[in-house]
């Protein structure tokens, strides 16, 4: 029972971690919260589900299309809702992103209707027994895939020219520009990478809960933000740690405290973190 809750928590937590990475990367480079991160998550899930529902697209191609769609949406958001407002008071891009989030949610509502769409499961995820423990292979697959994406991100940021350039821009935009880095392009790249990760989280949760709907991004987006703060905003390992911890806390809280208030747990943690350790577990650069 406890072990099962722990695994459930890690599975949803890995999706929070993927969205939190998007928040943290964008926050790191622009110092802004992209409020529409949850809608990017929703967009990735919708594109994959709609393609799979046609019955003619192979699973991996549909997933790839979902990731690309999420990345493109992120890029469009950067161009429309953030770039024209650079240099303005921080309130202005914040409200603009809130507007974009509401716009995308209601657009999805108009285009796809309010109903849940099931995930057309192409692969068979049966429960197997591993050394006497029942293992849900879907959960295992999601966890492994999420950890794979996180690993790729860390490798990208640490060891590639572009990854290092993003870090340089996050540390000091002006100096990075003097070193010949095209800052605008790095900001766009950050949006692409961060959005693709959020899209991946969306696809995983659409599979896990077997539900895709226009408002699906609202709560995970908020919780992922809490996760980013918990880990230390602007800190990549922190976002991963924060996401997983939050998922586990939520799952255990729902099982042992009260399931009616499951969605409140993330915010109670957020407020506690802000009170006790606003820089997060691993020190973020937000302050």
């Amino acid at each position: 029972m406890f072990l099962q809750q722990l695994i459930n928590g890690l599975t949803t937590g890995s999706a929070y971690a993927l969205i939190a990475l998007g928040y943290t990367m964008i926050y790191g480079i622009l110092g802004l919260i992209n409020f529409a991160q949850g809608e990017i998550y929703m967009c990735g899930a919708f594109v994959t589900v709609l393609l799979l529902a046609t019955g003619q697209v192979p699973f991996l191609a549909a997933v790839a299309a979902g990731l690309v769609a999420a990345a493109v949406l992120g890029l469009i958001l950067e161009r429309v809702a953030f770039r024209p407002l650079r240099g303005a008071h921080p309130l202005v891009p914040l409200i603009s992103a809130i507007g974009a989030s509401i716009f995308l949610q209601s657009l999805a509502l108009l285009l796809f209707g309010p109903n849940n769409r099931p995930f057309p499961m192409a692969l068979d995820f049966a429960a197997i027994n591993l050394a006497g423990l029942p293992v849900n292979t879907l959960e295992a697959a999601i966890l492994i895939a999420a950890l794979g994406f996180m690993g790729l991100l860390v490798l990208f940021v640490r060891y590639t020219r572009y990854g290092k350039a993003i870090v340089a821009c996050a540390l000091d935009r002006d100096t990075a520009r003097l070193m010949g880095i095209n800052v605008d392009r790095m900001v766009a790249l950050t949006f692409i990478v961060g959005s693709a990760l959020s899209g991946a989280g969306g696809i995983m949760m659409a599979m896990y809960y077997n539900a895709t709907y226009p408002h699906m991004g609202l709560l995970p987006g908020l919780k992922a933000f809490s996760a980013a703060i918990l880990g230390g905003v602007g800190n990549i390992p922190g976002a991963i740690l924060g996401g997983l911890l939050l998922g586990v806390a939520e799952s255990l809280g729902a099982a042992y405290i009260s399931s009616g208030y499951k969605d409140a747990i993330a915010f109670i943690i957020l407020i506690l973190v802000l009170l006790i350790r606003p820089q997060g577990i691993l020190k973020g650069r937000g302050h």
Partner: protein
Amino acid sequence: MAAYILHLAIVAGIYIILAVSLNLIIGYAGQVSLGHAAFFGIGAYASTLAVLSWQASYPLAVLTAILFTGFCGLALGLPTLRLKEDYLAIVTLGFGVILDLSMRNLEITGGPDGIVGIPSPVILGLSFRDPVMYLLLVGLGVAFTLLFTYLLVSSYHGRALRAIRDHETTAQVMGINSPAYKVAIFALAAALAGLAGSLYAHYIKHINYESFGLHTSIMILCMVVLGGMGSILGSVVGAIILTFLPETLRQFQAYQDLIYGGLLVALLILRPQGLLGKGKLSLKFLERKE
């Protein structure tokens, strides 16, 4: 028709209080709250419960609503307002979600059905059951809010707030305790939203969680941005426009949130100062630094 316009005027009055109070947070504390509708709801439930459970008189119920909501604002503002701008937006959004869940699940709030049969206000034997009388009461609330806001903004404290908004470090060097000011203005704005909640509950007579969700918070935010962040008169105009306009465009109701969202992005790119942002009580801080 006249009755309908009267109804809209009452609703517009309530939204004026909400928009002006949110504008205090945005324009004078430099923060965004996405939970203003939650404070609106707290005020509505507090006032209702005071009347129904404690048999409190109406003026006492209004006072309870204002004080209790202000206290909630204080409790939420204390941990968050020491931090950067963006945190308050998320924390208030989360607060809205928690409150939404509480309103649906708690016994005292009547669960998802809410509370019905809220009595009309009676003050000193005078009943405000008639809509014309109620408009008068709402008008009184609006007048109080505007007068209070105007006096606050043009006082020593108003100047201190503007100094913080325009340059926080300089203000602190001048000896202004900026976190204390931000928390105070946030609590005051919450208290005013509580007043609006009380006025709403005793007019509509039936409240449930649906009226106090994110949709309402976004609508109030739209009113403020449309009228001009930091412009008190702008918020009045924004609230009136966004109360009456959707009524004349009934056939577009499905597109309402789409329009609100698009409006926010478009306004901030094209005219961040809003309709009346250049007025007497406006602020210059939104202008782009080149």
